[in-house]
């Protein structure tokens, strides 16, 4: 246990620059985990004080008040009202935006009233200086009776003072009176007092206000059952209208502190919002605004595609080199195969998407840090609402273009449960990076090479597939909106912060965290599944080698083949005798109406875990030996597939209807175990991932069926 560490909690409003301060203090020494029992992200970090003392700091979710508005905000009240809580801090460092002093003080006064020692960090002093805004720090400190440190998360000015201040706290003795206020800001009314007094069993060390907050939050946070019961009983019997008292308290706090706070801040002009105002005249213009948004999105996805090509090539080469290396060092045995075709191939399958994911997150983080995203949310909220989602869902849907996993995790900021669930359910229909290799292989069978004016046919087809995914997600959202009945708690009400140049440090740290969470969550699942699939595809009943050899050597052109070609053919034949092969044959009757044969069946089964596996499996089935050049093997694969005939011996297997049907299948199908795993985690159960799996599989099956039957 880290009892020798000083425990600090960073608290503040959204947009106060809290993460800048967190990054300033911890640098790379930070990580993201979960609060136990809830899907709320816990950002923790470590740093050292000048005196050498170690500090463990937790960045609590930004909120406006202890009375929560969304599911992650309630953790703030839960932790700060419970002195026994694992994450209960020794000290709170409250970060506020000096430009927003009056508003941000609400939560600060609440926390002071909880009786927790506090240091106030007045952030964004660099912006204040640029606008000639004066803050009377001494007066603020006198009023609050806790230390106040001016600081800038952007320039790092004031960092040393903050560290000194924390160090002084560490060296002061309990009860740390210099960090506590003598009287609470808010005086409980008679009714509120009688409420808390009527309840017994309070934990030790709580102030009256802390008890009051516990009463307010009792239904949203975890409490000792006896205490919770006691609170509910009292609230009922005294007819205590929680909401009314919260509103009253909030109004009283603002009214009482307004005069004192106003005196400490001197703002000469409205100058600093001028630029934001001007920029928004274009950015949020009724017609131009959305146009600009789509242009930016187009750029983002073009960039992802273009910039990730080279790194993806290097990664594939590296993994191919590793596979060759292992094969040359280790003896020919099942465990070598497991290592190369199971483990390394599996890991490679995850790592190869890192470039695309990194670029997407980088660009999204830039848009968020600058303040642009909130404008996008403002412009699209009304449309999102029509589909049962929230303006904030937009960020998730965009992220799904790279990968649905972080997109589903991003839904945590959505207050309303129904909006959140719908976003989670439909996000995977947006075409993700993993679908691209599949589209690339199959598009050639659907659309010829060539141009229509300046547009490339295949490029247009690609866009068409993406569009299909987007339309499908909106249609599915409508259905869910109609079907799911739930209590509405939907809100927009967001701040549109002043535009700021993105702080690259923040951006890079955010990207690092998101990419890592992708690798670890997708990685674990894909690795496990790759091993299972390797087994299913490598082993089968009876002597697979003998059967394969028998089949291949019976072919008329056997004698003319080279050693390598014979090996490749045997590998291809072998897979049909594996467990995966038998499964493929078993499902063939079900997929025949879609235009698929058992070979495609095998690929469908293997890619059930992860879509991109489709190409590798097809390559094996069609006896493509391994080459280093992905384009070359894709081209060879297409050649082989192009030559394949149907059972009638005349028509091509991969004719237009079959290829289109297969493409449509991949647009809709839920072929990603990692997505299901994340959905399960975020919804705390199997119900919703199973619904996801069910409805998407149905869409894929019937979509393919319709297409194939219509075109053939």
């Amino acid at each position, binding site marked *: 246990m880290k009892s020798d560490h000083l425990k600090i909690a960073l608290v503040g*409003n959204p947009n106060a620059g809290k993460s800048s301060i967190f990054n300033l203090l911890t640098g790379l020494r930070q990580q993201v985990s979960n609060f136990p029992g809830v899907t709320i992200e816990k950002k923790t970090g470590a740093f050292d004080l000048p005196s050498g003392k170690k500090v463990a700091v937790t960045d609590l979710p930004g909120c*406006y*008040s202890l*009375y929560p*508005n969304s599911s992650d905000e309630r953790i703030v009240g839960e932790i700060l009202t419970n002195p026994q809580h694992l994450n209960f801090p020794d000290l709170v460092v409250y970060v506020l935006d000096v*430009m*927003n002093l*009056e*508003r941000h003080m*609400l939560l600060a006064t609440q926390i002071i009233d909880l009786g927790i020692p506090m240091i106030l960090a007045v952030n964004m002093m660099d912006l204040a200086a640029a606008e000639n805004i004066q803050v009377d720090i001494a007066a603020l400190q006198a009023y609050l009776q806790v230390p106040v440190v001016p600081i800038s998360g952007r320039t790092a000015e004031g960092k040393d003072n903050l560290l000194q201040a924390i160090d002084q706290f560490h060296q002061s003795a309990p009860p740390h009176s210099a960090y506590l206020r003598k009287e609470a800001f808010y005086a409980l009314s008679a009714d509120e007092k009688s409420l808390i007094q009527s309840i017994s069993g309070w934990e030790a060390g709580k102030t009256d206000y802390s008890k009051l907050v516990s009463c307010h939050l009792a239904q949203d946070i975890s409490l000792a059952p006896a205490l919770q019961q006691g609170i509910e009983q009292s609230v009922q019997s005294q007819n205590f209208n929680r*909401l*009314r008292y*919260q*509103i009253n308290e*909030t*109004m009283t706090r*603002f009214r009482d502190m307004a005069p004192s706070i106003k005196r400490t801040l001197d*703002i000469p002009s*409205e100058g*600093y*919002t001028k630029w*934001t*105002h001007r920029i*928004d005249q274009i950015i*949020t*213009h*009724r*017609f131009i*605004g*959305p146009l600009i948004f789509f242009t930016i999105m187009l750029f983002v996805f073009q960039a992802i595609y273009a910039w990730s090509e080279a790194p993806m090539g290097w990664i594939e080469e590296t993994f191919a080199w590793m596979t060759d290396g292992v094969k040359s060092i280790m003896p020919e045995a099942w465990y070598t195969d497991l290592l190369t075709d199971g483990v390394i191939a599996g890991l490679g399958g995850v790592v190869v998407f890192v470039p695309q994911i990194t670029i997407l997150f980088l660009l999204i983080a830039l848009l968020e840090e600058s303040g642009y995203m*909130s404008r996008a*949310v*403002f*412009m699209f*909220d*009304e*449309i999102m*609402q029509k589909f049962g989602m929230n*303006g904030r869902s937009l960020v998730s849907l965009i992220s799904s273009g790279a990968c649905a996993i972080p997109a589903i995790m991003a839904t945590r900021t959505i207050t309303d449960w129904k909006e959140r669930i719908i976003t989670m359910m439909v996000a995977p229909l947006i075409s993700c990076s993993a679908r691209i290799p599949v589209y690339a292989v199959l598009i050639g069978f659907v659309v010829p090479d060539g141009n229509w004016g300046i547009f490339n046919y295949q490029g247009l087809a690609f866009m068409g597939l993406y569009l299909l995914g987007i339309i499908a997600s909106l249609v599915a959202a409508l259905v869910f909106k109609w079907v799911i009945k739930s209590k509405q708690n939907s*809100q*927009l*009400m*967001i*701040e*549109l*912060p002043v535009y700021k140049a993105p702080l690259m440090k923040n951006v890079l740290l955010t990207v690092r965290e998101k990419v890592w969470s992708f690798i670890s969550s997708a990685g674990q699942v894909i690795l496990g599944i790759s091993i299972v699939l390797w087994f299913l595809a490598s082993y089968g009943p009876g002597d697979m080698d003998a059967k394969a050899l028998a089949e291949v050597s019976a072919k008329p052109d056997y004698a003319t083949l080279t050693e390598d070609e014979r090996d490749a053919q045997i590998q291809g034949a072998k897979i049909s005798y594996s467990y995966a092969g038998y499964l493929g044959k078993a499902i063939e009757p079900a997929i025949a109406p879609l235009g698929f044969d058992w070979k495609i069946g095998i690929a469908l089964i293997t890619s059930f875990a992860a879509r991109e596996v489709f190409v590798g499996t097809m390559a094996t089935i069609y006896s493509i030996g391994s080459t280093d050049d992905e384009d070359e093997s894709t081209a060879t694969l297409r050649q082989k597939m192009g030559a394949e005939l149907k059972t009638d011996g005349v028509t091509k297997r991969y004719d237009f209807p079959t290829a289109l049907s297969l493409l449509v299948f991949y647009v809709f199908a839920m072929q990603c175990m990692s997505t299901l795993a994340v959905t399960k985690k975020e919804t705390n159960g199997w119900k919703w991932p199973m619904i996801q799996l069910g409805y998407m599989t149905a869409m894929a099956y019937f979509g393919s069926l319709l297409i194939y039957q219509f075109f053939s």
Partner: protein
Amino acid sequence: MQQKVRPSLVNLSVGKSATVHALEIEAHACKLMALGIEPGVNLSVVRKSPFGQSLYVSVGRHFIALRKSEAEGIILQEI
């Protein structure tokens, strides 16, 4: 005594300002206050979203986006 029927924020045209009289939707009150919208404060409608269902509002030095349904609960003294 005549009860004055007061307009809400949805009745305020783009470019105009008004003073807040009361916050009628209790579920939104705390958050609106935390965002700076409380009785006595002056605010103005800067623009609307493409289909007009959301408002870009300026309150003091700050900008806030609200839905029409949220703006309905913000009662103004007069337009």
